[in-house]
């Protein structure tokens, strides 16, 4: 049974990814950030053996270390790590107006730093697995096609993440790690705090495409490419 670890699995894309992998017969370690949200618990009733919930706040080093230990106690091998947890920097304000940069720092702590630390904690378990490192980034981090304006700690955090992934790629790809960088599209998820009614795609549709990209074998593993939910490539 192959093993996958998914962060930010309570709802949105993370939850949809859990479902996909469970249906495919994987053992899933789902990072639970919001124990009060019922969907993961419901899924666990459906897959009591294959789904394991792990308390995980990727923005908190202690929580990361504890979660890693818990996973280590349950398995010797992780085949796939999916870094999905992400937040906006809601409330940070606008340049020239009122600003609260602590929100922007939080976005960096979770979206970039949390992801990098999660990779560090999981690597010892991944040496003998399939070595698939998957990252949910965003077009919002792409400077080459940046269309937004003003100030956005979210965009900055995703650009930082993309650079962090590049550095990991340079170090780990020669060791056989396979990198998947995914922009899930504009999804109707919970990033604003409640289920969005605008957006172009449901998390479930995006998750299906993501999983096919994450699991496919490529004879071009020495390239770091960001693909989206339409299989289009995005420049950074």
């Amino acid at each position, binding site marked *: 049974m192959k093993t996958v670890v998914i962060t930010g699995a309570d709802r949105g894309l993370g939850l949809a990814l859990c479902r996909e992998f469970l249906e495919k017969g994987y053992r899933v370690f789902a990072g639970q950030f919001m124990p009060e949200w019922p969907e993961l618990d419901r899924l666990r009733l459906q897959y009591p053996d294959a789904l394991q919930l792990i308390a995980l706040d990727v923005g908190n080093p202690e929580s990361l270390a504890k979660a890693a230990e818990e996973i280590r106690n349950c398995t010797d091998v992780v085949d796939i790590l999916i870094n999905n947890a992400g937040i906006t920097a809601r409330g940070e304000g606008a*340049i020239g107006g009122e600003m609260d940069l602590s929100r922007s720092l939080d976005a*960096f*702590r979770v979206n970039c730093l949390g992801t990098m630390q999660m990779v560090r904690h999981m690597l010892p378990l991944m040496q003998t697995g399939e070595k698939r490192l998957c990252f949910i980034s965003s077009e919002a981090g792409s400077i080459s096609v*940046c269309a937004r*304006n003003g100030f956005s700690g979210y965009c900055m955090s995703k650009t*930082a993440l993309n*650079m962090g992934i590049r*550095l990991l790629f340079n170090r780990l790809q020669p060791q056989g790690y396979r990198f998947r960088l995914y922009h899930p599209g504009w999804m109707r998820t919970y990033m604003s705090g409640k289920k969005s009614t605008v957006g172009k795609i449901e998390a479930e549709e995006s998750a299906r495409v993501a999983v096919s990209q994450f699991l496919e074998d490529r004879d071009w593993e020495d390239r770091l490419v960001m693909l989206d939910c339409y299989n289009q490539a995005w*420049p950074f």
Partner: protein
Amino acid sequence: MCKIAYITGVFPEGTARISRDLSAKGYAVYTNDQKDCVWRAGKLDLLVCGLEWDASPETAGAPDEAAYDALLGEYERYALGTVQVVHDLLPLLQKGEQKRIAFLTSRDGSNQMCRETGKSGKRIVLAAVHMFASLLFNELRPQGYTMRMYCADGDYRYAAEYFTRDRSYEPEDPKHSDENRLVLRDAFSCEIPW
């Protein structure tokens, strides 16, 4: 009234060289802790935001917990600190005639050129600031601002020239305009990819 320039965040050697070159071009130049003088001048024409600092020492191979702490600190100080500087001085730039913001940065912030594993904290912070510059450009260019991004990497000789010379701009033909796009350039004026 002469043009006012303010330089912050550049290494001392670069600050001295760019100050000298800008003064020769007729600017009144203030640096680092002379922010109050800019406020007294009542306007700012050219803001030079440097992104130069001694990066925290790299641990061999994978970063450890301490490296992450250092990175968080660097991000707060240099990435968000840069946002704060621009935010603080925007009202004065608004009153200046030139309305130009220049970032003095490094090719280490280029994701597409990066084939290495070192200087990871610095690269991550610089990339994020490049995104900030891009967002800012989209916001401010329609208001008449212009921007420059200069990868100094120790070579400050042409910074002032690059910061002050206007670039091609034909309002009737956007394709001829180099002011309507944001690019990273090195000291030799060559474009560096993002």
